[in-house]
């Protein structure tokens, strides 16, 4: 909502300065978004006429225009607008002027070899509207004004307010003035409301159909006959321009002015184009009409239309139609001032994807009792400017409006706000805001003003009182430092632990969108169903991710393209399994690319490999408190991993839930994604699959025991079939004598010469130590033999001599 201090003063008597105004607006909840100085610069923008256009010699889309700006010589201006044509009245900005929208200062410049003196401006560039297609087109009435400044001199800055959706009353200058006055910023002026005095009847019959979901509950109108639509007088033009509106013609300007001034939207019809009266009704399905935006709309049942015998004239409270619009030669007009239900307006606008100023106001709620005031004010102004005769006002309605009553317990104020004001103060504030107050013991019986649809219960009254008294009156009550419940639960603690454990292994934490490109997601979604976003911001962010890999790989690839070759990144966050709340799991996903060491004077080049990542995952689990003796690892993994170089980890031998996958990304995927790297290894840890410890880590620890007896290490080399898993071999050895065998270590795996094909040699070092005594040669020999025997029996291995 754009206002100026000047306009405000039509409704507000105050001696205070604009600086205070800005502060006070903010204090009562009318947030000042921006203040724009309509500075001296604005005088530079002149009404101008294009005298001649020629095609630019070096550019197809550009034109060279001779522009009359009221000086002897025409200015040469290069312009790219399609609508720049001979005879067009428009707005010219000379070199030195600053364009309000872009804040760029114009200079004399050569455009493709042709010097351009200044610029012809679009409405958008001048902050007049969002119309950026082409330059401003002024009506022929501006012919007289060529060379004159388009904007009038204004003392007042343009203040842009952000009005919250609960305050439709503040979409009119008067509403804002009322709030300011209540807060002590001046005094609200009495409305000098002149009434239409007429003896002529409104002869166009209006009927509101009584039907289900009728979106219009009252329709006021009057006829103004024999008008001469013309250019608005200077004061009206200045007023509209001062808040960034473009004057069009008196009739349109007056309705806009009334709307901005008291938030009363009106609509003017060319009465001669209405066939035998008006019917306000629900649209029929498949009914169509062409709106003032020149678009054709297909209507549906339940949309409120203003119609005549021939069909739809307009969508009530949203947009008028071309058929009955006023034009410069309009003689007789019907002025509409109606009440449309917010719900109906919103439904219709949403379905048709239409957004208009009227819609914006009606869906928030217009004062239902402003119908007459609007007609009076507008009709009299139109008569004053355009002449003609006004008829009596006709109001049709299908219900009567009753003011809401709120019974307000004055104690509630302090209970909520924490501070106290007297009942007298409360009454003063509320009356200033337009409430009628009646004291009833400790209650106030309040009649809510008709322009406040947002107020219906006690808490709304508290808000009004706190807002107007000032939020600065609320006293700080310092919080007590006391904790009765632990801050994080166990899963949350684990989340934070894993996050930092992975980062500590050299991974950079990334945060990527929860949605992704379906082309990437397809590689990783397995059998999960694709979860589409109905309205994505772009097609490459169209699905919720089934795996974090899709994003990590994409960003990894980008980083590689930036020239970073060796990189580890990870993300901890949600992946989605369905489109219902809760169908998501938390995954820690990491990805390493390139080499573990590269171009180092001390180490050989080595690609990052599966066992690097396996280490990261296993170490993380151990650090998180899981017992590595319990781990079970095999090679069954989703198909986006390399089938031969990937594995999964279970945290216990029950193998209930996969704690993690790790491995090389399937080479086919790397190829399709065209990621350029020496190696690409990833892992996924599933937070919800990790069993939470029932006991604290402290309680889980076994009693501290050590053995000081001598330990011995024995080395073995077994030849086994290629498909025998080392883990099985280790398990077999460990189980030979759990008391004596304290460690089993693999120090070599060999295939090739001297080993039969399809077999491999595994060299293992076993640490043997007794907690009770020093083992003698005999003891050691015995356990040696037992190890060999057991391994050979259970795995088909042969000890290598």
């Amino acid at each position: 909502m754009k206002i100026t201090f000047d306009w405000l003063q039509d409704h507000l008597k105050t001696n205070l300065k604009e600086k205070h105004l800005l502060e006070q607006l903010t204090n009562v909840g009318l947030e000042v978004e921006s203040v724009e100085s309509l500075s001296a610069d604005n005088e530079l923008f002149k009404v101008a006429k294009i005298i001649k256009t020629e095609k630019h010699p070096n550019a197809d889309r550009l034109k060279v225009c001779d522009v009359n700006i009221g000086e002897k010589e025409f200015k040469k201006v290069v312009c790219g607008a399609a609508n720049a044509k001979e005879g067009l009245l428009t707005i010219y900005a000379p070199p030195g002027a600053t364009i309000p929208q872009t804040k760029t200062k114009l200079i004399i410049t050569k455009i493709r070899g042709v010097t351009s003196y200044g610029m012809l401006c679009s409405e958008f560039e001048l902050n007049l509207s969002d119309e950026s297609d082409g330059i401003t087109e002024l009506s022929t009435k501006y012919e007289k004004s060529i060379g004159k400044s388009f904007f009038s001199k204004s003392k007042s800055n343009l203040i842009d307010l952000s009005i919250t959706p609960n305050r439709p009353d503040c979409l009119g200058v008067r509403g804002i003035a009322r709030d300011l006055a209540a807060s002590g910023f001046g005094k609200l002026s009495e409305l000098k409301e002149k009434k239409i005095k007429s003896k002529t009847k409104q002869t166009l019959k209006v009927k509101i159909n009584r039907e289900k979901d009728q979106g219009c509950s009252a329709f006021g109108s009057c006829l103004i006959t024999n008008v001469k639509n013309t250019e608005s007088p200077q004061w009206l033009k200045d007023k509209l321009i001062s808040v960034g509106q473009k004057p069009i013609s008196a009739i349109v300007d007056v309705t806009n002015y009334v709307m901005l001034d008291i938030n009363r939207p009106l609509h003017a019809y060319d009465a001669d184009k209405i066939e035998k009266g008006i019917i306000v009704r629900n649209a029929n399905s498949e009914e169509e009409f062409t709106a003032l935006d020149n678009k054709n709309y297909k209507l549906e049942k339940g949309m409120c239309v203003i119609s005549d015998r021939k069909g739809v004239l307009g969508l009530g409270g949203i947009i008028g139609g071309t058929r009955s619009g006023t034009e410069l030669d309009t003689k007789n007009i019907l002025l509409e001032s109606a009440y449309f239900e917010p719900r109906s307006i919103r439904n219709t606008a949403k379905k048709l994807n239409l957004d208009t100023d009227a819609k914006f106001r009606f869906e928030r709620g217009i004062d239902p009792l402003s119908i007459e005031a609007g007609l009076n004010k507008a009709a009299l102004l139109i008569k004053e400017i355009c002449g003609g005769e006004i008829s009596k006002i006709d109001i049709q309605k299908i219900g009567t409006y009753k003011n809401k009553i709120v019974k307000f317990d004055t104690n509630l104020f302090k209970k909520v706000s924490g501070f106290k004001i007297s009942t007298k103060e409360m009454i003063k504030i509320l009356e200033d805001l337009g409430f009628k107050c009646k004291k009833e013991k400790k209650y106030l019986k309040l009649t809510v003003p008709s322009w406040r649809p947002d107020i219906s219960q006690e808490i709304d009254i508290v808000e009004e009182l706190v807002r107007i008294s000032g939020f600065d009156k609320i006293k700080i009550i310092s919080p007590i430092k006391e904790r009765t419940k632990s801050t994080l639960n166990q899963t949350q603690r684990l989340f934070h632990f894993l996050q930092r454990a992975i980062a500590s292994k050299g991974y950079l934490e990334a945060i990527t969108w929860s949605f992704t490109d379906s082309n990437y997601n397809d590689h990783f979604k397995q059998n999960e169903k694709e979860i589409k976003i109905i309205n994505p911001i772009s097609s490459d962010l169209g699905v919720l991710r089934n795996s974090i890999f899709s994003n990590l790989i994409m960003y990894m690839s980008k980083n590689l393209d930036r020239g970073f070759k060796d990189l580890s990144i990870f993300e901890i966050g949600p992946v989605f399994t369905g489109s219902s709340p809760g169908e998501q799991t938390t995954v820690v996903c990491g990805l390493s690319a390139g080499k573990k060491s590269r171009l180092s004077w001390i180490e050989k080049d080595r690609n990052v490999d599966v066992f690097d990542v396996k280490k990261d995952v296993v170490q993380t689990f151990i650090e998180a408190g899981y017992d590595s003796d319990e781990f079970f690892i095999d090679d069954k993994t989703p198909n986006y991993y390399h089938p031969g170089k990937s594995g999964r980890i279970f945290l216990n031998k029950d193998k209930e839930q996969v704690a993690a996958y790790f491995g090389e990304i399937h080479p086919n995927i790397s190829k399709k994604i065209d990621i350029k790297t020496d190696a690409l290894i990833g892992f996924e840890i599933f937070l919800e699959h990790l069993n939470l410890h029932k006991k604290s880590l402290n309680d889980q620890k076994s009693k501290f025991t050590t053995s000081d007896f001598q330990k011995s290490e024995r080395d073995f080399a077994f030849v086994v079939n290629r498909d025998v898993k080392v883990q099985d071999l280790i398990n077999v050895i460990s189980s030979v004598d759990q008391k004596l065998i304290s460690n089993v270590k693999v120090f070599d795996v060999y295939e090739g010469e001297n080993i039969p094909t399809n077999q491999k040699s595994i060299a293992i070092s076993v640490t043997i130590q007794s907690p009770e005594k020093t083992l003698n040669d005999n003891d050691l020999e015995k356990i040696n033999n037992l190890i060999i025997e057991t391994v050979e029996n259970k795995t088909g291995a042969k000890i290598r001599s």
Partner: protein
Amino acid sequence: MSDLKKIRDEFISKLEGKLDLSEINQIKSDLFGKNGLVSSQFKKIGTIVESERKKFASDLNVIKDELQGLIYSKINEVENTEINKKLEKEKIDITLPARPFVRGKIHPVSQAIDEISSIFSEIGFSVEEGPDVENEYNNFTALNTPDNHPARDMHDTFYLDEKKQKLLRTHTSPVQIRTMQKDKPPFKIIAPGRTYRSDSDQTHAPMFHQVEGLHIDKNINMGHLKGCLNYFIKEFFEVDKIKMRFRPSHFPFTEPSAEVDIGYEMKDGKIIIGEGNQWLEILGCGMVHPNVLKNVKVDPTKFQGYAFGIGIDRLAMLKYGINDLRAFFDCDYRWLNHFGFDPLDVPTNYRGLSR
């Protein structure tokens, strides 16, 4: 000259010469070996006339000690020289680079969440979470934003079905609903997490982070709200004084509602929080609307309290001096490395939130 003196002089002069380790050992065995010169003298003690025996023995011991001492110091000397020679050969260029290592980093948003949790933990808030995909009811209706409420337009919502029943939550406020539905009052929670809105430009990302706060009890009023936020802002920005301004605003799920600005000034292109005359909007808050409490079956005549929602990314930008919101999610190695935190930097109350 006695034998003893002769032996002594001879060997002392020998030991003064330049010797290697084997020559010294030779001397050692010549003197103290089984049949060494000194050892033989000891065997002779018994044969010495009693009157001279004592002196002989004492002289012998003096000489023994002297020679032994000399031998040991000589050995030491030679060994030292040899070690030094060896060390000299082993000398490396210590300025050569260390073995390569990589540092992982924690994302600034994660760090900010940890800092925020740590601060609210002190005053008794616990952390709750909710799903990213929400139903329309929890995200809007239960929060006093019925269908057809214009406030819904303030949230550009991503929908997952044509009926617009399932969506990506537009704020963390649905966690309020879930928490209050699940438990009984009092409630004192924060809920950090991902939130989504379908706009995207220089200052908006389609995904961002919020932390929700909710404190419901008997007699919790706006003074508590102000106190809580005042405390939080001071702790978070690690300043003693903070300029804070509550501005009336509107959110359907709180009433009265406020937006909170903090004072700042620009110094050398950097934002200094807590000073100056500029205002920066950082959060929205208010007293939980009675309709919301009714929706979750909490009696608004018995319980009341406040809620707030803070943009985490925005806070992180301010605190850590980051200019571009979009960069948070761009995953640029250089950015992550520059703005990321060492994983060992866990924000705690006793060590301080940040270094």
